[in-house]
C-alpha cells in the first residue's frame, strides 16, 4: 500500500486546519484515495500553535496519527522548530520562506522547498489566503494529488464569494511549486 503521511503546522489564524482539510478532501473525495485528518488546537483561537495530521493512502487507513511525516508543511518558525526534527528520512519540507529559516534541525537528506506564501497572498490582495497559496505549493511540489482534485477541494471548501481569489492563490502557489520542484530535480 502506498501511504503518505503529512503534517501541517503553524499558528491559529493562518488556516492550518483548512489546509490539511483541503488536502484530505482532495485525496478522498476528488482523487479516489483514502484520507484521514487529525486536528490539534491551542487554547486561543488565534496566535497559538496548531497542527493537522493528514494521511493519504490508496487503501483504507488503520492508524491515523502521524509521528514522522513524509511531508511537513510549516507556516511559522515555532512549528518548524517543533516538527522539523521529526520528518522521515528522505522526506520533504515545505515552508513559508519569509518567516522560516531552515537550519540543522532538519534531518539530513530531507528536501526543503520554500515559498513566500504570505507575500504572495498580500500581493493577491488578502493575507488571509496564505494557507491556500501553501496548499497550491504542496500540490505543485509533491504531485501527490492531481491539480484538478485540489482545485475542486479548494473551490468547494471556501465561502461563497471568495472562490475567485482563493483559486488565484491556489494557482499562484501551484505554479511556484512546479518551478521550484523542476529547479531541484
Amino acid at each position, binding site marked *: 500500500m502506498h501511504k503518505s503521511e503529512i503534517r501541517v503546522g*503553524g*499558528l*491559529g*489564524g*493562518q*488556516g*492550518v*486546519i*483548512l489546509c490539511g482539510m483541503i488536502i484530505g478532501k482532495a485525496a478522498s473525495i476528488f482523487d479516489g484515495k483514502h484520507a484521514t485528518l487529525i*486536528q490539534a*488546537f491551542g487554547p486561543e*483561537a*488565534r496566535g497559538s500553535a*496548531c497542527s493537522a495530521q493528514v494521511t493519504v493512502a490508496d487503501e483504507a487507513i488503520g492508524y491515523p496519527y502521524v509521528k514522522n511525516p513524509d511531508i511537513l508543511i510549516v507556516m511559522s518558525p515555532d512549528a518548524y522548530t517543533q516538527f522539523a526534527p521529526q520528518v522521515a528520512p528522505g522526506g520533504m519540507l515545505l515552508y513559508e520562506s519569509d518567516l522560516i529559516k531552515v537550519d540543522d534541525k532538519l534531518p539530513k537528506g530531507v528536501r526543503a522547498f520554500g515559498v513566500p506564501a504570505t507575500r504572495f497572498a498580500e500581493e*493577491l*490582495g*488578502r493575507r*488571509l*489566503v496564505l*494557507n491556500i497559496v501553501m496548499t497550491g505549493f504542496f500540490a505543485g511540489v509533491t504531485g501527490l494529488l492531481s491539480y484538478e482534485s485540489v482545485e475542486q477541494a479548494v473551490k468547494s*471548501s*471556501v*465561502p*461563497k*464569494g*471568495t472562490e*475567485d*481569489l*482563493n483559486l*488565484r492563490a491556489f494557482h499562484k502557489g501551484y505554479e511556484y511549486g512546479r518551478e521550484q520542484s523542476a529547479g531541484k530535480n
Partner: protein
Amino acid sequence: MTLEGFPQTVSLRDGTPVTVRPLAAADAKALLAFYRSLPEEDRLYLKDDVTDPGWLQRFVTLVGSGELVSLIAERDGRVVAEATLYRALRGWSTHVGEIRVSVAPALRRDGLGTSLARELVKVATRIGVEKMVIEVVENQTGARKMFRKLGFRQEAVLRDHVKDINGAKRNLILASTDVSHIWEAMEALVADFSPSAE
C-alpha cells in the same frame, strides 16, 4: 495595480463573444470614441463630461495611479462598454467603493453590464472594499434591476435630484451592498479554533 485573470471572454445572450480587460493608457482614444457615441440623454446621467479630452486625461491618470479601476469590453476592436470602480484612498470612506457602468445601447439587456459589474465586485472585495454603492436615476430600470440581482439594495432617495434632457426632475436612488461578510466567513474558516470551544 495589476489585475490578474484578464483578458476574459464574455459571451452575450446571443453567444457573441466580447473581450473584457482593464483599461490601458493606449485605450484612451477608443474610450473617448465610445463615450461620444452614447446618446446625449445617456450622457446626461453621467457625473462627468465624458466627451471632454481633459476629463479623459485625468481619468486615465487616476487609473494608472490605482485610484480607479476601469474595465472595458471590446468587440471587433471597438470599446462597447466601460465600468469603473471609484475608491477613496484617503479619508473616512476608504472601505467604500462606487461602481459606474456604461454600455452601448445596442448591447444592453445582453448581460454585458452585469458581467462587468460582477467582475468589479470581485476586484473590490479582493482589494479590501467592504461596502459598494451605486447611484441610479429612478427611470433607469434596467440598471436598477441589474444591481438588484448583484445584491444591491436601496439605501436612500434624493428627491428631484436629477434633471433629464427635457428639464424634468427625477429622483436619484442610492443603493449599496455590504461585501464585508464574504471575507468574515473566510476569516472564521481560517481561525483554527477548536469546534468544541464554541
